[in-house]
Every structure is written in C-alpha cells, then in structure tokens.
C-alpha cells in the first residue's frame, strides 16, 4: 500500500512504514510542519510504530527538520516502536555528526538494511 501526500511517500511493508521525501530540500518551515504532523499521526495510529525514514535524494536539511526527527524518534520509542534512518548522503551525514544526533538515531546505509530484522520486507 502506498500513500502519496504532497511532501512524503509512505509505504507499508508488512507493518513497517517506509517514508521517503518528495523534495530534495527539507528546509521549508511549512513543509516541515506538514511532514511532522503526518508522521506524528501515523506513529500514533500504530500499536508499536516501526518506521524507516529514507533520505534518498535529499540534498539539504535544516535544524527544524532535525527537530521533527527527534520528535518522531521519541514518540516511536515511547509507544514501544523504533525509528530508523537510511540513505543519508555524506554532506547530510555531516549535519548529524556535528549535532551528535548520529548518537541518538539508528542509522543504516540503505532502507533495505534498515528493514532487515525490523519485521518488514
């Protein structure tokens, strides 16, 4: 099942939500708010939400986007699930390293690797 919204694509893979971004820049405040609202809604709708957010194609990321990821990470954890991130290109990875958020998030090289052992396929 694939659901298209204006900013993200969410695919349900046997109970694991794979999230991809439509835009290459995750900077715009209104877009980030919209993404945040939708991800929170989805995380709250699942019993123990398992989510893989893929950054394939993403070129820029602001601190507001990092804030959303932190919120989703806390929420999935609180509800007995987990958030995994994948496909982060080196320039974006540097943003995670500078902010030390690479210590907070479960980061995988590819979405496929993130899905392994996560119950989804």
């Amino acid at each position: 099942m694939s659901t298209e919204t204006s900013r993200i694509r969410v695919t349900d893979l046997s109970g694991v939500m794979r999230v991809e971004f439509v835009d290459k820049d995750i900077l715009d405040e209104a877009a980030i708010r919209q993404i945040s609202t939708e991800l929170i809604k989805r995380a709250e709708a699942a019993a123990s939400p398992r989510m893989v957010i893929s950054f394939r194609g993403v070129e820029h990321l602001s601190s507001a986007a990092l804030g959303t990821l932190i919120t989703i990470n806390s929420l999935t954890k609180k509800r007995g699930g987990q958030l995994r991130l994948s496909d982060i290109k080196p320039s974006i990875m540097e943003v995670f390293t500078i902010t030390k958020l690479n210590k907070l998030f479960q980061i995988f090289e590819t979405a496929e690797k993130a899905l392994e052992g996560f119950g989804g396929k």
Partner: protein
Amino acid sequence: MAENDIGGVGQMTSAPQPVAEGSVRLHEINKEIESIQELIEGLLSQFGYPDAAMFAIRLSLEEAMMNGFRHGNLQDLSKFVEVRWRIDSQSANFHVIDEGEGFDPDAVPDPTLDENLEIPSGRGLMLIRAYMSDARYHDPGNHLEMNFHKVAK
C-alpha cells in the same frame, strides 16, 4: 537602504576585484527565503565557490533567517528580517538582522550534550558556527554577521 533593494544584486564592478553586494528585507518566511537562496547560490557559483561551500552557506542562511523570523520577530509577519551580502572571489559576508529584542547566544544550552540530545530545537546556531568560517552576534543580539572564506575555512 531601500526596502527590497534587490536591484543591487549582481552589481559587479569591472575591476580590479569584482564584488557582488546587495540587501533585501524579507517579510514572508517561505517563498522569499527560497528566492534569496537561489539568488545567493547563483552569485556563489559565479565566483567559483565549490559545492561544499554552497551547502554550508545555504544551510547557515536558512538557519539564520529562520531564527530571525521565529526567535527574533516571534513570528510577527509585520516585522522584517534583513539580509545583506557582500561576495567576492575570496569570501562571502552576510548580515542577518531581525526586529526582535536580541538574545544572549551564550545562554543557548549546548544541544550536543547527552542530556540535551532529545530536545528538538536549538541547533541552528551551532550549525552556523560549524559551517561558516566565523559568526558573531552584534549587540543586542538581533544582528548576526557571518563569513565564509573560500580558501582557508
């Protein structure tokens, strides 16, 4: 300085050292930020800045403008954020000024401490400091000046 003095963009004096200077007052968050980003990126490209520099400057400007709107002007859209730039082949200088009361940048908690990692905000300024060659607030803290030196960062 005229409001939206965007006519100054791309003014390149012929010799000996070409420089692009300009300024703009932004009132609306999203659309205007995007257009200023494109404009700056075009100038940086003209002056031969590499991709990594353009990434650093785009991110820093984004964070600076968002901080100005959100924390400086407290989302009051009747207030503006002014951006000034001066770019030549060696370095790029930016001023981002909001209409707020200013703040003490040293009072912002360190978001990289373990106990602060899960706080979803407060990372804009540290990214600016990490990516730009230098960045400082002029008193009373509503005026950020930052530089990127193309050669020695």
